[in-house]
């Protein structure tokens, strides 16, 4: 057995001698009893220097009591494994070590000391440091809601964690054709050369983004050989690590780390970089979604505000101008709205910019270089085709192409257009115009999403314009009709002075169901009528139109009043829609001053005697027209004195909201009594006194004054 033990011991000694791990042993008093070559290398002491010395010489002050505690446990029979701690070397350097401590048993079983195997884990310390930094970066990236901050966080953590000398983050632009340097640390100002790189450039970063593969490049000359584009840059980098940023299947960009010394990228370093890059990619993705969400919400708010503007007025030009100014600078720096004209051209309705002084530039441009309606681009083309146009960027060549001359080119360059969208204003299948949105100072680049939002806005605007136009057309039709229906002029018969006034009720409509007419018949008689078709607006006006024309004919024929009214009633029997008409019709001889009148369901005519008294012509009354099966219309007569004034009117003049017609009539009588003598004076007088308080109903007033012949 002794021989075996000797062999074992020899073997053990050989192992200890050749081990890469530092192995030492100490006795119960913590004095060093053995020290292997690896311990010499790790701690910098030779065996002669340490044997017999207390092991505390390699224990740093901060860990002072540690050895004792370890020894206690060992003497109690414990084995300590992978105990991580720090030790101090001969030249004062702190090293991270992992200790495995085992009791040494004497042949008699007593524990005589401990053997310590120390593995240097300074590398592991670095790994721990990186893990901490990765954690910290993750936390901060999770909080970062804008891309700028996310890039900052990454650079702050990655550079020190890997001991790089410089780091940069490049991001792919929305078009996917260029890579922009979003942030960099440690490079010389010459890095600006690489601020924008074409994706297909032969550069390490762009290659990594294109291929989606990480690049670990060690060796400066190799770098410049492989990427000749890097030659000439003042920074001399020995090693380069590029890791692409990918979120899902979307390429976002890449992270680059540069080292002045040749650096071999160990496995855990690569793992750290990949993990950090993944975190950054996530954060960027999240930041973009956030931004997109914020923009969408802003767009929605804008659409709501725009709808309010569009609903506020029926004046098309005014509304579109307000809309254009609302759109700047939120949706664009410039907003222009053009409407198609009937002759195939276009009319500029609004040009807006948040800074009104810039508008002068647009005015100058428009005045000197009016847009060509045949242009195959922009508003004219959009109006023609009904299809939107999107120019995410405006390269200078495009401006050169479009410019008519040097001055034009200078002016359009001055506009500073960076991105343009033109969307059609289409409603009910027709393109009415176009809205042009230009991003200039803001530097924003319009995307498909922006275009969609703009089209939505344009749809709303177009509908509002179309509705306003329809309304205006109807209004114009009504006005035209009404003008055709009113008597062009009043006759001036001998012996009588005539005046009239007509005030339609409908807002924006000039015509209603009331009418008046006055003709001079043969034999010098004067026939007059004031009528009221039940109902309102255009419907009542249409009926009125048919009736007035017919009745005028009957009057001109000289029909006796009752007969004329009878014929009109009969005519109404042929109408498709049932309606009702009340009227007063008089026929008078200015010479004899004899008046024959029919009052059909209508308020009574008033007479102002020369003495000043006002009375009603309330002879026999007849029913309204158009409602009874066999109505009987009767006329009555009266003889009036010279200077008398007869007043005919419709009930709109005497109606009040909460009053009966009786009180209104009384009020009219008073106003009529107080009115000046002339026919015109009477009409104006009663209209002024009563018209203001009248309900919104048509009012027709006719006054005839016998001048005496």
């Amino acid at each position, binding site marked *: 057995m002794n021989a075996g033990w000797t062999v074992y011991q020899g073997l053990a000694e050989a192992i200890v001698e050749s081990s890469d791990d530092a192995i030492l042993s100490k006795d119960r008093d913590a004095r060093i009893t053995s020290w292997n070559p690896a311990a010499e290398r790790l701690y910098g002491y030779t065996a002669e220097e340490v044997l017999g010395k207390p092991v505390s010489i390699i224990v740093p002050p901060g860990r002072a009591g540690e050895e004792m505690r370890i020894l206690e446990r060992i003497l109690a029979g414990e084995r300590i494994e992978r105990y991580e701690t720090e030790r101090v070397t001969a030249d004062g350097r702190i090293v991270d070590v992992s200790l495995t401590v085992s009791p040494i048993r004497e042949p008699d079983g007593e524990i005589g000391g401990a053997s310590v195997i120390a593995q240097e884990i300074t590398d592991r310390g670095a790994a721990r440091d990186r893990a901490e930094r990765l954690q910290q970066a993750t936390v901060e990236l999770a909080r970062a809601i804008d891309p700028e901050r996310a890039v900052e966080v990454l650079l702050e953590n990655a550079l020190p964690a890997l001991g790089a000398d410089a780091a940069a983050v490049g991001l792919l632009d929305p078009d996917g054709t260029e890579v922009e340097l979003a942030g960099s640390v440690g490079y010389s100002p010459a890095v600006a050369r690489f601020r924008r790189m074409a994706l297909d450039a032969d550069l390490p970063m762009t290659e990594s983004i294109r291929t989606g593969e990480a690049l670990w490049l060690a060796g400066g000359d190799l770098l410049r050989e492989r990427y000749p584009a890097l030659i000439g840059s003042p920074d001399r980098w020995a090693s380069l690590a590029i890791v692409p940023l990918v979120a899902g299947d979307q390429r976002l960009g890449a992270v680059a780390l540069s080292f002045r010394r040749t650096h071999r990228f160990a496995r855990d370093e690569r793992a750290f970089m990949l993990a950090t890059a993944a975190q950054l990619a996530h954060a960027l993705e999240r930041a973009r979604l956030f931004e997109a969400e914020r923009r969408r919400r802003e767009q929605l708010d804008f659409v709501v505000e725009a709808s309010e503007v569009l609903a506020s007025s029926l004046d098309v030009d005014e509304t579109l101008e307000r809309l254009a100014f609302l759109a700047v600078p939120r949706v664009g720096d410039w907003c222009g709205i053009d409407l198609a004209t009937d002759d195939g051209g276009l009319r500029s309705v609004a040009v807006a910019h948040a800074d009104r002084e810039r508008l002068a530039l647009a005015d100058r441009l428009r005045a000197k270089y009016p847009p060509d309606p045949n242009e195959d681009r922009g508003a004219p083309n959009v109006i023609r085709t009904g299809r939107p146009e999107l120019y995410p960027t405006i390269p200078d060549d495009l401006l050169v192409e479009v410019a008519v001359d040097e001055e034009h080119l200078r002016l359009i360059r001055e506009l500073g257009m960076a991105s343009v969208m033109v969307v059609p204003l289409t409603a009910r299948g027709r393109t009415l115009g176009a809205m042009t949105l230009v991003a200039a100072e803001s530097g924003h680049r319009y995307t498909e999403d922006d275009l969609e939002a703009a089209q939505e806005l344009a749809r709303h605007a177009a509908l509002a314009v179309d509705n306003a136009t329809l309304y205006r057309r109807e209004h114009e039709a009504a006005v035209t009709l009404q003008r055709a229906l009113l008597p062009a002029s009043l006759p001036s018969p001998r012996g009588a002075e005539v005046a009239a006034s007509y005030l339609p009720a409908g807002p924006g409509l000039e015509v209603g169901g009331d009418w008046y007419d006055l003709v001079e018949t043969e034999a010098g008689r004067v026939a007059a009528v004031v009528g009221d078709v*039940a109902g309102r607006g255009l419907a009542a006006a249409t009926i009125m139109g048919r009736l007035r024309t017919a009745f005028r004919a009957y009057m001109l024929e000289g029909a006796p009043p009752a007969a004329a009214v009878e014929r009109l009633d009969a005519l109404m029997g042929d109408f498709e829609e049932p309606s009702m008409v009340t009227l007063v019709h008089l026929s008078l001889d200015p010479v004899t001053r004899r008046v024959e009148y029919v009052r059909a369901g209508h308020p009574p005519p008033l007479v102002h005697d020369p003495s000043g008294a006002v009375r009603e012509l309330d002879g026999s009354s007849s029913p309204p027209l158009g409602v009874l099966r066999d109505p009987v219309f009767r006329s009555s007569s009266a003889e009036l004195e010279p200077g008398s004034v007869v007043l005919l009117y419709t009930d709109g003049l005497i109606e009040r909201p909460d009053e009966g*017609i009786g009180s209104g009539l009384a009020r009219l009588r008073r106003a009529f009594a107080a009115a000046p003598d002339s026919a015109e004076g009477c009409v104006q007088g009663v209209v002024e006194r009563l018209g203001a308080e009248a309900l919104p109903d048509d009012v027709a007033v006719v006054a005839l004054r016998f001048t005496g012949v």
Partner: protein
Amino acid sequence: MDRIAAAELELRESTNGATRVVSVAGELDLASSPRLSALLDRLASERAALVLDLTDCTFIDSTGLAAILHGARPMVSFSVVCGDGVPGELLRMTAVDQTIPVFEALDEALNGTS
């Protein structure tokens, strides 16, 4: 005069012997008259004797009047009950009371038609 305000209109039908009674409560104007027209159209086919009670009718304009008069045409007999208020004034002003019997109370009208 024609008003557009859509005021409340209540129409109630009842029968008294061989006579139909339609009571109008509220306001008969441009907005509410079509309802009365529709009701009277429906009753027209029954060739009934009809009494239109306007006692609780607070307001009529010319469209209301037109609805009443048009509705009356096809009826076998038609009479109106109304007091002194706005409807009464209008019926007198328009001389409708000279062609359609107008009573001051419902029982008078019912006696008148029986």
